């Protein structure tokens, strides 16, 4: 269904988002995605498993209907990968990112850019910079200490987070692909598609996730999780591609820690379902992870994996 501008304004106003964003980002995302005419998805979560992580990524997206369903010809694509640190199991694998870029190119993307706040050193050390440049894509690194690089966005439905500073660069793209590595996080046990969005918000905003009022808060776990869910109410990735090939299950998010190797790449658009699936890879359940549970209660997706269609293939 195509959403026209008037419908969009009505919908935006009804959730209070219009006054926050202006029309740009939200309308662009909603209208473009609707207008691409992606085939009605027969599956919600696509999983490809095997030793070749590049091939897994291609297959996971292909089984979801193909990148063409998400990336219109000539569009500007923003990718948010995680180059946190080159410690094993702590960063999005270069092969996974490379495959995603290739698919975007094949779909006819006009520009593909990895946006980040982490320094060039991280991109270099993780091997991610090489694949981005090899594929002719770009990396834009925002200086997170420069607050002028961010703009304040209100979060109308936020329960703990009422506003966030989001990098201005993010608003220059037509399509947003969220590409985290799923892994442990000492602060809340889990990181996946939803927590990865903290890569778009400023240090000031993110620190407020971890600390209330800039003071150490020993009860902050619930607060952090609510903030993550709240942030996700204003940003909807067009596609999530999760690296679950090899990742740390202890001492996250930085590592080093114990590593499991499911050798899986997961693709989907329902963040709650995708994260529920990811946490199940190391014995957790979505309903036990607060951020997933809170996002479910925000209506962002389905938490019960029995209620979503999952297609898994082994290569």
């Amino acid at each position: 269904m195509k959403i026209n501008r008037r419908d969009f304004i009505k919908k935006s106003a009804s959730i209070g988002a219009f006054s926050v964003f202006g029309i740009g980002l939200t309308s662009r995302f909603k209208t473009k995605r609707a207008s691409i005419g992606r085939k009605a998805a027969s599956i919600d979560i696509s999983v490809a498993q095997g030793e070749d992580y590049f091939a897994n990524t291609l297959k996971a997206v292909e089984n979801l209907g193909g990148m063409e369903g998400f990336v219109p010809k000539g569009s500007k694509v923003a990718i948010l990968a995680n180059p946190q640190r080159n410690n094993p199991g702590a960063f999005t694998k270069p092969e996974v990112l490379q495959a995603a870029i290739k698919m975007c190119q094949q779909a006819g993307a006009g520009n593909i850019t990895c946006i980040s706040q982490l320094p060039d050193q991280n991109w270099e050390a993780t091997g991610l910079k090489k694949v981005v440049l090899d594929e002719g894509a770009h990396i834009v690194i925002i200086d997170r200490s420069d607050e002028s690089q961010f703009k304040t966005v209100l979060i109308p439905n936020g329960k703990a987070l009422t506003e966030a500073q989001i990098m201005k660069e993010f608003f220059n793209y037509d399509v947003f692909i969220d590409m985290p590595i799923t892994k442990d996080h000492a602060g809340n046990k889990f990181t996946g598609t939803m927590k990865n969005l903290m890569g778009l918000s400023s240090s000031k905003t993110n620190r407020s996730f971890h600390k209330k009022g800039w003071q150490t808060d020993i009860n902050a776990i619930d607060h952090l999780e609510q903030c993550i869910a709240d942030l996700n109410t204003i940003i909807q990735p067009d596609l999530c591609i999760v690296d679950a090939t090899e990742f740390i299950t202890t001492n996250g998010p930085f590592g080093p820690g114990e590593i499991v190797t499911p050798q899986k790449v997961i693709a989907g658009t329902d963040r709650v379902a995708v994260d529920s699936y990811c946490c199940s890879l190391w014995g957790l359940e979505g309903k036990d992870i607060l951020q997933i549970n809170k996002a479910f209660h925000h209506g962002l997706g389905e938490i019960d994996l029995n209620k979503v269609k999952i297609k898994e293939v082994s290569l």
Partner: protein
Amino acid sequence: MKIRILFYTAVLFLIFDACFSYSSQQKSPESILNYLPTESTLKKWSPMGDPQTAEGENLFQLINGGAEIYHEYGFKRAVIHSYECESGLSLNIEIYEMEDSFSAYGVFSFKTGRQGRKVDIGMDAILEDYYLNFWKSNYVVTLIGFDTSQATQQALKEFAKIIEPKLPDGGEYPPLIHHFTAKETEAVRTVYMEGNLAIFNQYEFHTENIFGIKKGVSAYFPDHTLFILEYNGNSEARDWFQNAWKHLKQSEKFHGFEGSSGGAVFQDKNGNYIVATPFQKYILVYLGKNESKAKDSLKKLKISIVKNGNSHHSHISLWGEAKHPVPDRFFPASFSINRYLNTT
């Protein structure tokens, strides 16, 4: 004459003070970079890029959300640097300066995996398949390789041995750990905790700090886990126990509650029994699938507390709660905590 004596005394004092200050600086270098290996000691290895450092709150800039657990223990400063070898190997070094040796040991115990083997470096060192952690004084050092080869493991040990002598001497274990080092009560692994994040990562009782934890240990045994949480006094322990009990009873994660504010038994959805009780200035918790083990495990821990406790506690009965029951309001008639805590 008096003025001359005063003058010479002042000069001597200044000379002594200057020498003393110099000595202190030698022992405690101003820059944490001084603890990194120097190129002259590296042979075939060379540093990659510039080291990254962080102090206090800025650890967030360096390791993002990973910083919170360091802050919980008490973080001062850190340096991270990468090195590469002519052979193609590379590794990362992370040096964290913590507030004191308890917090350094705490972070070390938190980060140490279950599968590692001990190595003789610093106060304790554990080599995992691709990384090595050790601690000394108020420093925790983590060395990370990128494969599990013997060459990588050897390199991790060699780098650790270069860094270790540069760090200040000493290091003191938190006293609570000693309850799990004696032969009778020796744990496979212990984690010293100084806050809610630490215990949350051991077992998810609750996301809020319902135990008001400031100091504690989780001790792992082959088939169960024991927790000991320490407070300033008996009444504080009992108050926090009541608070925890109130919250736990409202949690959907647990069921089969028996007991009340003086002691509790309940189960989690994985079939674990949780037996918890305040004892002197502590809260003790057993977690395991074998209900009958709780009694013996808690008994041993209580014996250890009484043996290692302060002399003014020595007159307290090992079975304090049983012989000096808490008021009835804490123990309804049906309550059966004593089956876990009594010797009879």
